């Protein structure tokens, strides 16, 4: 390349590589956020048909690991309501 070939190597391929890795990660992350939101709404709708629960008592979180991802659903049901329905 140029006289300064060693100190001034092409930087565009570095930019390209960094972007490809970053965007693959960010696209997955944004898709995941949407999925959690959708799941939360649908779970809330199903539970609400049977038990009266507060909108903010359904917590859905997803953690993505290298080999396995976990979906955690935490629903807080008022004791009176749950007992009343069960009786």
């Amino acid at each position, binding site marked *: 390349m140029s006289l300064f070939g060693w100190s001034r*190597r*092409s*930087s*565009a*391929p570095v*930019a*390209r590589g*960094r*972007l*490809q890795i*970053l*965007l693959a990660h*960010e*696209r997955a992350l*944004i898709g995941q956020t*949407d999925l959690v939101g959708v799941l939360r709404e649908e779970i809330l709708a199903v539970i609400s048909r049977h038990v009266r629960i507060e909108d903010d008592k359904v917590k859905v979180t997803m953690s993505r690991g290298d080999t396995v991802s976990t979906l955690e659903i935490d629903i807080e049901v008022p004791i009176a309501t749950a007992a009343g329905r069960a009786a």
Partner: protein
Amino acid sequence: MVAKLLVVTSGKGGVGKTTSTAALGAALAQAGQNVCVVDFDVGLRNLDLVMGVERRVVYDLINVVQGVARLPQALIRDKRIDTLSILPASQTRDKDALTEAGVGRVIAELREKFDWVICDSPAGIERGATLAMRHADIAVVVTNPEVSSVRDSDRMIGLLDSKTVKAENGERIDKHLLLTRFDAARASRGEMLTVEDVLEILSTPLLGIIPESDEVLRASNLGSPITLSNPASAPARAYLDAARRLCGEDVEMTIPSDRKGLLGKLFPRRAA
């Protein structure tokens, strides 16, 4: 007459949204289309300045949204091309003055009057930007061959596919990439992302490549869209070609150059 609604967006600021809105709007109007360019950058309006109509602003988009003025009172007709109009943004109000219903009403009225309505989006992904893209049929994503701009464009493409009326109705919004401030010589030396790099990363069809040029600053200094102030310049030719592609013409993709040499004239640089 029902207009095509086009949003010029990018996420990142300073990449050339306003310049491109003015140039594409003027280019379409020069081709005989009836065009209105709309500034959505409430609080930081600049399209009026780039178009050279800053001293003729009386009413603005927010006045019309709020019913203080009627649309025809706020529209400013360009003195150079009579098929080109501009609807300025408000400089004093804040962006919360724009409501979705109000914007929808104004957009519907604009669609009746013009062939093309081109919305200049503010930077960012906040309310102003999402409202500007909300009703769009076509999106032009302005991108510089630079990492932060490409990343933000990727984010905007995601939003266009999820937050627009078309996307919510299960339709596809027509997205195009406009690569601005491109320097073919630097890209060939490996100092700048190439056209192919950007296209591969963003997987969005190319509308045009606007070469880096001193003529762009000169046009904004003069308050004239570059396709009017210097239609023979390289960036103007790139914008004129892009406008023809928007109209459905099949125009070969080139990177226009201002090189004066005979070789440059005989062999214009091809791209992609």
